[in-house]
């Protein structure tokens, strides 16, 4: 187990290191240098030179990337060229909004998806099971930003049930919750499908297991068998899959934030791409991919803890 832990964490660190190098090289492979792209065509050569110096672009590439890595290790992601503030401050100020949105989405998706999957497995091949199956695939396939737009159109513009912009009044949890409903609905919808499918499949497997057969032989009521002996085991693989799902959730959250004008990493990134604000783009991408790598690593570790067979795969 310790060997697995060390190797898995080593892999995670290697992935982040390669990712940073790739991103950094990509930005430097731009035709024309970043300084002139940022300043636009009307900049004087002196202005360009000054910005190049400030961004450290006049130094050799290896030195630049070395100092960037050094900075990252110290928690310094560079300086925002538009607002002249540390990138780390800006990114970490936005991060909680995205994390709350992602957690709320996963939360409601699990609350709906697990019972649906469980019901499907218990009543397999019934009409209800088929309908839930088709719905699950549809939820997974529908483009998440289209869900955001239609949720806004129907429930906000049309019915006026929920607000369409922002995160609500600071210090007023009720207003904040109301602002969270539609974005979380849009981000979580496809996960209702994923979770229902996963739970159904693993539930069917567990219901065929020996311990369930034994429980049946002892004459335990079906309800007790399902909820006490089968479901707790059937839910485990779903939890580990959620780690890998964080990437998709973040992508969906980007659109939900833009459609509902919510602050967060997605809005920040969108705005910074428009301004060609490289340091902020780099910082935001780095933080989200670290978040993603950490959650997949945690999911793998949880999986290894629960299932010894998974430890040998790496």
């Amino acid at each position: 187990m310790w060997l697995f832990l060390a190797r898995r964490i080593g892999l995670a660190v290697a992935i982040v290191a390669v990712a940073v190098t790739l991103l950094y090289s990509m930005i430097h492979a731009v035709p024309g240098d970043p300084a002139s792209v940022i300043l636009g065509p009307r900049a004087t050569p002196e202005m360009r030179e000054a910005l190049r110096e400030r961004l450290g672009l006049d130094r050799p590439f290896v030195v630049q990337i070395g100092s960037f890595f050094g900075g990252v290790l110290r928690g310094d992601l560079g300086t925002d060229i538009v607002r002249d503030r540390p990138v780390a401050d800006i990114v970490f100020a936005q991060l909680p909004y995205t994390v709350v949105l992602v957690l709320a989405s996963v939360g409601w998706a699990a609350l709906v998806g697990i019972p649906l999957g469980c019901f499907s497995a218990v009543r397999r091949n019934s009409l209800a099971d088929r309908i839930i199956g088709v719905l699950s695939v549809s939820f997974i396939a529908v483009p998440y930003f289209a869900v955001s737009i239609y949720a806004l159109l129907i429930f906000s513009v049309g019915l006026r049930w929920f607000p369409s912009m922002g995160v609500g009044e600071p210090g007023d949890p009720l207003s904040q919750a109301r602002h969270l409903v539609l974005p979380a609905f849009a981000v979580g919808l496809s996960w209702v499908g994923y979770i229902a499918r996963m739970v159904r499949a693993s539930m069917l497997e567990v219901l065929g297991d020996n311990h369930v057969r034994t429980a049946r032989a002892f004459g335990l009521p079906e309800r007790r068998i399902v909820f006490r002996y089968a479901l707790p085991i059937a839910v485990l693989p779903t939890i580990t899959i959620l780690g890998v799902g964080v990437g998709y959730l973040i992508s969906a959250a980007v659109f939900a934030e833009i459609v509902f004008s919510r602050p967060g990493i997605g809005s920040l990134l969108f705005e910074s791409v428009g301004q060609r604000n490289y340091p902020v783009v780099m910082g935001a991408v780095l933080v989200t991919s670290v978040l993603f790598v950490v959650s997949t690593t945690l999911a793998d570790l949880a999986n290894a803890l629960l299932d010894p067979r998974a430890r040998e795969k790496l």
Partner: protein
Amino acid sequence: MAADEIPVAPRRADGFLAGLRRLTRDGMGLFGLVAVLLVVLSAVFAHQLAPFDPTRIMVGPRLAPPSAEHWLGTDQLGRDVFSRVLVGGQVALQVALASIAAAVSIGLGLGLLAGLGPRWLDNAILLLFDTVRSFPVVIFGLAVVTVLGPSLTTVIFVVVVTSIPTYGRVARTQTLAIKNNEFILAERAMGAGTGRILRVHVLPNIIGPLLILASMDVPVVITIEAGLSFLGMGVQPPTPSWGSILNDGFSYIRNTPWPVIAGGIPLILTTLAFTFLGEALRDTFDPKLRRDL
């Protein structure tokens, strides 16, 4: 469709027709096939079917609701939305076709290399795959747009790079599974080179799963194209795309719902159709793949 049905003795598929019959036996597979055919036909003949020039700005009514003349209404510049939706479908399918073809070929090449090459190369390629997968697609897309600028080429580049790992991993796993078989060893002993083994044994076994994966990737790619175009980071005006129609409509969502409805419904129906078809294809031809993903 259900994995728990009592297995019937597998009959060999008697060619194309038998496969088609099994594929359409299930209602969703039939819906997928018919809808995909309709979408592909309307995309191929988009310019012939479009009643108006999709990029012509007309003096007529703006943001008009559907009427006999403009079936899906007009947008904020007076352009015919129905014509734009048709041509937008063509753009979406072109992006999907071009980028999936490129991703399958590159993924296949890298997967074979990882499966057949030395251990260090295998590890290096796997690390590269894992790294690419550590970026959420949209985030990666936005980062690439910052560097390359928004365009159709950028969208294709993003899709190709982010989908290579999926194909590469499947190609690698299948290669490894075949490589260590005894009949390969026997053939090597009889003097067969790597080229012959690749051509006769490895490739035919990899192509099937890769093509099924590719068919399931179509809705994903269409979603990415539409998503980036919705953000204004994909297909550039005046070329219509379902994403940019949604983007235009979204700016006027409080005035009229029609452009948003007209841009979104074809997108949703198309992704659903390709997903149902892809699932039916997989369940019909390669049920094992379900577990590998």
